[in-house]
């Protein structure tokens, strides 16, 4: 967000982009269509399933170029403009090609106070890119995110709209990148309260394998 505050410029998207997905690849398979039909059946109108289907398209094509948005619109018989509006509203839908792993580093209030920017800048230095950019090998994208709802374990980041990495430190970032280079995604981790350690064997949830405990968060170096 710092960049935007210093230089608050909203760009105009390319209004007449060339398609990137080949025509022959632009379809949903029969299985996908069946899956979409089940989602649609859960809502009074097909519009209700738009977010799920956009997600499916993003997983399939890697990101959502206009032609993928059009495919979703056609599949759900919705106006293309409306689906495009939804796709641009959510930052989790990627409108352009990103790295294989996308780091959403939270720099919102709580994380900021606990060193969110320190972590962001460390990542930027480590990967030699600026927030918003992708490494040359196409492996990593770093971007700033607003509150991801895990302030208790600030600072934190999210990997490609998936698992969170809590209580970030430089060492954790080093380990994360090494693991990702090997192709190992971090696992989902449930964060629990210290008192749960004694009471529930450390975990309120029975459905997760990995837990970590809230710790007193660090204070941002710039705030200190």
């Amino acid at each position, binding site marked *: 967000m710092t960049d935007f*505050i210093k230089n608050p410029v909203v760009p*105009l998207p*390319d209004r*007449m*982009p060339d398609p990137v997905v080949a025509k022959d690849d632009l379809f949903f398979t029969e299985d996908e269509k069946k899956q979409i039909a089940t989602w649609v059946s859960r809502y009074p109108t097909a519009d209700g399933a738009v977010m799920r289907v956009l997600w499916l398209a993003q997983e399939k094509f890697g990101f959502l170029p206009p032609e993928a948005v059009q495919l979703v619109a056609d599949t759900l018989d919705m106006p293309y403009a409306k689906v*495009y*509006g939804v796709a641009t*509203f959510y*930052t989790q839908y990627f409108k352009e090609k990103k790295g294989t792993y996308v780091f959403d580093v939270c720099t919102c209030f709580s994380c900021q106070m606990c060193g969110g920017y320190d972590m962001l800048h460390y990542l930027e230095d480590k990967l030699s890119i600026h927030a918003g950019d992708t490494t040359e090998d196409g492996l990593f994208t770093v971007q700033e995110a607003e509150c991801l709802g895990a302030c208790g374990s600030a600072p934190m980041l999210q990997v490609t709209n998936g698992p969170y990495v809590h209580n970030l430190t430089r060492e954790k970032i080093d380990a994360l990148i090494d693991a990702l280079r090997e192709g190992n995604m971090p696992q989902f981790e449930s964060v629990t309260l210290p008192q749960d350690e004694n009471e529930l064997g450390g975990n309120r949830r029975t459905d997760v394998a990995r837990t970590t405990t809230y710790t007193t968060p660090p204070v941002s170096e710039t705030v200190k």
Partner: protein
Amino acid sequence: MPKITIDNRTIEVEDGVTLLQSCLDEDLEIPHFCYHPAMTAPANCRQCLVEVGMPRVDRETRERVMDEDGNPVIDFMPKLQTSCSMKVADGMVVRSHRTSELVKRAQKDNLEFLLINHPLDCPICDQAGNCPLQNQTYKYGPEGSRFEFRKVAKPKNIELGPRVVLDGERCINCTRCTRFTQEISGSHQLTIIERGVRNYPMTPPGVVFDEPYSMNVIDICPVGALTSKDHRFKARIWEMSQTPSISTTNAKGSNCVYHVKDNLVLNITTRTNMGVNEFWLADEDRLDYKKFNENRPDGPTVRGQARDWDAAWTEAATLLSGVDGARIQFLGSAHATTEDNYLLSRLAAHVGADTPSYIPHIEEGHGDGWLRTDDRAPNSQGCERLGFFPVDADVLKSRLSAGEIDVLYVMEDDPVGTGVCALSDLEGVKIILHHYHSTNATLPAASVALPAAMAVETVGTFVNCDGHAQRLRPAKAIRGVNRTLAMEVGKSRADLHGTPFDRWYTESNMVDCEPGWVSIPAIAERVGLNLSYKGPRAIMAELSDSNPAFQGATYDAMGEWGFRLDVVGQSEPHPQTA
């Protein structure tokens, strides 16, 4: 009907209506931006907040609870409510900014929010002077802003389509424009993209905002974010006079406002008429104004030589006299007013000619069942109701080539330009032509050419495709001084902005032409027919009395919104008056 109390005033309102609309119906202003009566209410601008309370009801008895004085106890909702999305209910008590400090404060703060990223470029903004945001900020807004950071820069001067230009920074994201494309026109060409401070309306990639009704979003945009590519930076709203009249591009007769500066029509915008075009106006109606300004003739001519009006009328009368009526062909016009066509039919009857026909201007497939019609002329119905038939080009041509026509009298049309006949067909035929433009293709063959006043320069009546008779009001002045016209111009060019707009006075912008109801009686007089009326109002009064197809259509009955005529087939030919 439910009774509600607004600012200590109790009124009866229609059931099922929103609170905001009932206030507006009562002429009680509530500031608002996103609400539009024809569209759904998203309640996103938050400007229409009011305090709303309902009478307390005893849970057991279901009776209203009364206080010691016998008045119902009112429970106010804990938060302010958006009046645009709140339906009225019996007993509702409302406090607006007139009685509530809280509401006043909310309106002020909301405006401060709306203006955080709004550029202060009113001095160069086309909307200034006619801008709900500007007006309401003056009335209800804060004096200054506490926002001290750089404003967000968004795309500016973006052509959403061929006719509409976006300034993203001015947008307050009311979504009126996107709702128009979703709910009214159904083109779905616009959407709001991005979120938070970054959002603005845009076409999705690969789409151009080119629907035939795109320019309506310019009217409904409550700020200057959407402007007309054509009219941008041409004139400030207060430099122009605004005349309520009707458009001439098709047979729908959509109601519009002509904006005139220095006797040039510079812009056409919509005028609400729930009986015809509701709130909307097609783009073609808006852009069709250059014809009023350009290529206009400069006074009458006789065989190509400039003459004064007297001489030209006399020459026309000479051509009509001493010819067998059966050898004179009259062509009325679907572009001319009903009054002028009526006078023409009287003249035709007097010289013993057939009832005039008229040239149809049908463009198959152009109409869309909404505000555009296949018929590209504004008054075909008026002609039909006068008993005129569309001219049969083949019959006319064969009569011309057989030498059966000596004189062709053409009112406000162009038989050569429309392809009804060719210049070569007209050799040896004397032609009297009332024309609008010096580019009229029949002009070279005309013996007498009489420049005619166009729809924005005359007084008269058009009947639209649904039989709605509507009045034309003069928006610009012509050279010839005419009492009736001068009075009507004075009346119809309401000075909305308290400015002496007629300061701009370029003589050449006033066309040397005459309305049909001046020219035709002048010629009639010279062939011994008295057609002098006290202006078109009297002509229409006579017509509405004597011709069942126009029954009731007096100027008073037509007023601002027109008069729906009975459905009739072809009316009887007019009673032949001596």
